[in-house]
């Protein structure tokens, strides 16, 4: 619940839109009630007047009210939907910014591993779920409760006993059913939240291993295991459905009981001469009209548990893992020093890095050569401060990376990963990621260095063309070079490049590496690669094998 409030707490403008749309929803329900109540009043009064049991009847005033209520209900319902959407959209922005901000407080390595799995897709799905909380749950609830409250007040004025009876049956009984149902939905909600990812991963495992399973004639048997996971999910869903059915029946029962009581009390009051016949009929019809506002709440409130779970997951995401808490924001120089470095991935059998020592002075260019799979990438991530060593120390200007402020460190050290991610956005927006103020000329100059001048010229809108899913597709080699360009546009003091030329043909690679020299001047660079073509002029070269670094 706390997580839900944290994520959904509306800002000032959003709250105003919510308030306006909620009052429209309330007005729509009330006008519907008025429409039916006055109609009932009119018919009863006319019938009595028609047989002479009532003196002269003015039919024009109630007729006008009925017409006004009919038009008013249409208008308010239209406004409710429109303004409700405005409010929803505004809240949608807030939810996205909040959950995104939470995500951005997580360590890079954790984010990368999350990106490979389902978690981030699920995060966006959870965010989508929360978008619906206001229009589906809050809006109809406010309208139903508000209208009921008014009805109770009117009834109280006419007959306290009718008011209390009605309040007890509809407001009391209905609310009780909603609260009980929501509480009961927790268990199945939790089971469902567990069952769905289990089903997904069972399916994923089955699909990934399908060739293997077929080859040992186990595909059918394992498919039955997957279906068992489907059954687990369906069982939880059916339990939820049973609760929803209970809520719907319970609410309707409370509502109809309220109506029945109002009818009974109305008749009694009329018999005692305390209430006019048309008013008694109008009240009964009003209480019947209110039931329609209550019944949809069963579906709305069953949705609550889903929202709570979603909010809990988003909230938990930001909580796990922490960014280093270092505070130092300046270093005397940009020399990197590595001592006694060792690293093992959690759960892995062997250490990837056994014992590494290395010194890179400011402005030096170093090549680390090693076979693929030797652990070069891990070494690069350790040097960039993305991974934390198990043993030993890495320092920048004599200060342990752990003691440096994270944002400061990120501003100094640029890292090119083996699978750099480009955004589905314009080319320029992608390149400016690390330098918002870079001019078009600078971008074009750097694109020329990485050999992509022709690529840009071929694009329909030059730098403003979209790349990725919605625009020009980018090949592996082009993507790698764009990512390199993006890194070079930003003003990093130290660059760590992991296989920068993979997927680029040898000729282009040689061309790029010769041009690169001028851009790297004054910056430190560590290039990790399986061949030495990448960096033709380097100050030193090391060979990395079996977790150890040897100079060459």
């Amino acid at each position, binding site marked *: 619940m706390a997580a839900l409030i944290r994520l959904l707490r509306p800002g000032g403008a959003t709250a105003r839109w919510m308030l306006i749309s909620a009052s429209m929803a309330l007005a729509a329900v009330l006008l519907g009630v008025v429409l039916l109540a006055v109609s009932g009043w009119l018919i009863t009064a*006319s019938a009595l007047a028609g047989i002479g049991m009532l003196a002269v009847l003015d039919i024009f005033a109630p007729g006008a009210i009925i017409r006004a209520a009919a038009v008013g209900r249409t208008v308010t319902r239209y406004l409710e939907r*429109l303004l409700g959407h405005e409010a929803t959209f505004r809240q949608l922005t807030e939810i996205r910014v909040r959950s*995104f901000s939470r995500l951005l407080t997580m360590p890079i390595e954790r984010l990368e591993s999350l*990106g490979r799995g389902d978690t981030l897709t699920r995060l966006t799905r959870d965010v989508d779920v929360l978008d619906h909380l206001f229009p589906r749950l809050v809006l109809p609830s406010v309208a139903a409760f508000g209208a009921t409250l008014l009805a109770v007040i009117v009834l109280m004025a006419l007959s306290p006993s009718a008011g209390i009876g009605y309040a007890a049956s509809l407001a009391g009984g209905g609310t009780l059913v909603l609260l009980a149902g929501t509480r009961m939905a927790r268990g199945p909600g939790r089971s469902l939240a567990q069952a769905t990812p289990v089903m997904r991963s069972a399916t994923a495992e089955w699909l990934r291993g399908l*060739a293997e399973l077929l080859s*040992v004639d186990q595909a059918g048997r394992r498919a039955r295991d997957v279906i068992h996971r489907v059954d687990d999910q369906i069982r939880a869903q059916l339990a939820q459905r049973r609760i929803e*059915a209970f809520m719907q029946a319970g609410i309707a029962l409370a509502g109809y009981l309220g109506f029945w009581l109002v*009818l009974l009390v109305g008749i009694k009051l009329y018999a005692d001469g305390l209430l006019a016949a048309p008013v008694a009929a109008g009240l009964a019809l009003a209480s019947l009209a209110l039931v329609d506002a209550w019944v949809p709440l069963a579906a709305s409130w069953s949705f609550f548990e889903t929202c709570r779970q979603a909010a809990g997951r988003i909230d938990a995401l930001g909580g796990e893992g922490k960014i280093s808490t270092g505070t130092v924001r300046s270093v005397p120089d940009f020399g990197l020093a590595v001592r006694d470095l060792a690293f093992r991935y959690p759960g892995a*059998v062997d250490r990837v890095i056994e014992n590494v020592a290395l010194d890179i002075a400011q402005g030096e260019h170093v090549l680390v050569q090693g076979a693929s799979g030797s652990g070069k990438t891990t070494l690069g991530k350790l040097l960039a401060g*993305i991974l934390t060593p198990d043993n030993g120390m890495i320092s920048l200007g004599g200060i342990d990376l752990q003691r440096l402020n994270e944002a400061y460190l990120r501003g100094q050290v640029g890292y090119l990963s083996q699978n750099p991610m480009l955004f589905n956005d314009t080319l320029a927006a992608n390149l400016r990621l690390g330098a918002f103020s870079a001019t078009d000329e600078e971008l074009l100059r750097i694109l020329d260095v990485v050999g992509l001048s022709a690529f840009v010229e071929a694009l329909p809108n030059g730098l403003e063309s979209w790349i990725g899913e919605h625009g020009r597709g980018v090949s592996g080699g082009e993507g790698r070079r764009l990512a390199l360009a993006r890194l070079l546009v930003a003003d990093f003091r130290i660059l760590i490049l992991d296989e920068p030329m993979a997927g680029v043909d040898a000729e282009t690679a040689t061309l790029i590496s010769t041009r690169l020299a001028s851009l790297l001047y004054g910056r430190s660079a560590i290039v990790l690669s399986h061949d030495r073509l990448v960096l033709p002029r380097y100050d030193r070269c090391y060979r990395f094998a079996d977790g150890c670094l040897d100079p060459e």
Partner: protein
Amino acid sequence: MTVLSTVDAGIVIAQAWLVAAVAAGVFIEQQPLPALMPLMWFLLLVLVLRALSGGIRQLLAGRASAYVRRETRMRLLECFQRAGPAVLPPGGELIAAFDEQVEAFDAFYGRFFPQRIAATIVPLAILVFAFATDWLAGLLLLLTAPLIPLFMILIGIGAEKLAREQFRSLARLGGWFLDQVQGAATIRLFRAEDGARNQVVQRTHALRRETMRVLRLAFLSSAVLEFFSAVAIASLAIYIGLGLLGYLTFGPAPELTLQSGLFLLLLAPEFFQPLRALSQGWHDRADASAAAGEIRELLALPPARPRAEEEFAPEAPRQCKVELRGVSFAHPEREVLLNDLELEIEAGLKIVLVGPSGSGKSSLISLFAGFAEPSSGEVLLDGEPLARFADAALRAHVGWLGQRPVLFAGTIAENIALGWDSASRRQIERIAHQAGVFEFAGRLPKGLDSPVGENGYGLSGGQAQRVALARAMIRPRPLVLLDEPTANLDDESEALVLQALENLLAERSATVICAAHRAATMAWADRILGIEQGRLRWLR
């Protein structure tokens, strides 16, 4: 569902009639309350039934939807299995279909479908009673809802357009947001958090302005329905009022009484209620039909082995002869990869298949494994067409190991035996020794019983491949296929896997075909077969 809706219609009409009868009894006939109590009790019973029937409808709809989704998922798995790994599109797409898209059926079968039935039966029944009571009032309902089917189409067009617009713009935003979320690591690397956050705000605001413009118009269509229903109730009330007062002298109006008048008034909102519910649930239908389209496409995937015969199950020998007769093969909608191949491999021969990447090594292995069928020609095992073999018999003949080993959640020993329940512990240990699995498993606290796969120990590619090798070799198969078992390994791991392979093959009499990018490391090979530009050639 239809029965339930008919019962519902009966309840609604009975309720309206009872309320009207009670009112007429009290106000017109001036009956005392005790005389009316039987009617009141009966009304209470009807109201309780109405509440219950709503709940029961929910339950039944939930069950129907669960049944449909379970069946669809079962059919999808069967279909994936029949199509086989060589034809299936990427896993992410399949999982999305299996999970989210099948789930979209829930809104359709669980919510929209019962609503649609109710929206047909209930208004129709009400109309019949309204006409029987007062044909003018009935006409009024009919005119404000000009023939229910026509009305439904009207709702459909408006609501569908609305749903589509809303869905499309939200999907666009969702896609963009997912992209940002997936790039969170990159954003952090470039210290671009603030810029990215601003982008989220700007994009959603821009989308809001654009969408609200569309919605302003789109919501009008549902307002029309709202308007009709409100105006119908209002004019009905005024018509009945005037009729009761005796101002109207035409048609059935003079015969109106409080009872018939109230009865009609109470029926009016019930007439429109199911239609309104339907229009609000219309987007469920749009989502479900989009999902159904994609699922239908997957269910139409052709099976990998359409000609297998259930009863053709020859006994597996210790080794078998393998032949290709005029075999051609092409991936769907691509150029011919293998062209009219002829080949004969004697029983027990151990072959290395070499060729540049993309030359069709893997496709050829897939053909031998029965993961795909040749577009023409035949693969023969001991003279029998492989296409005829029953699935289980084929698996008893052919063992297979791929490039990327998949370990399932479970222990190393379970992964080696993988469903072969009668494998003895001794057999597993023996094969684990030969495959070099013990070399690393011995260092784990529980040895072969250490958990691997999801939530287990992370094994390196080479370690996992040795487990997979043990799995492929523990079952005696007359033909063993190895599809570049070291393609994704570094030199050191490759050496270990090749060593394991050599140990295992030394004491096996099976026919072996191993695709490889380098033949030099396969000292055990009897012969080397080259493949290039869709042609086969013996190199040694």
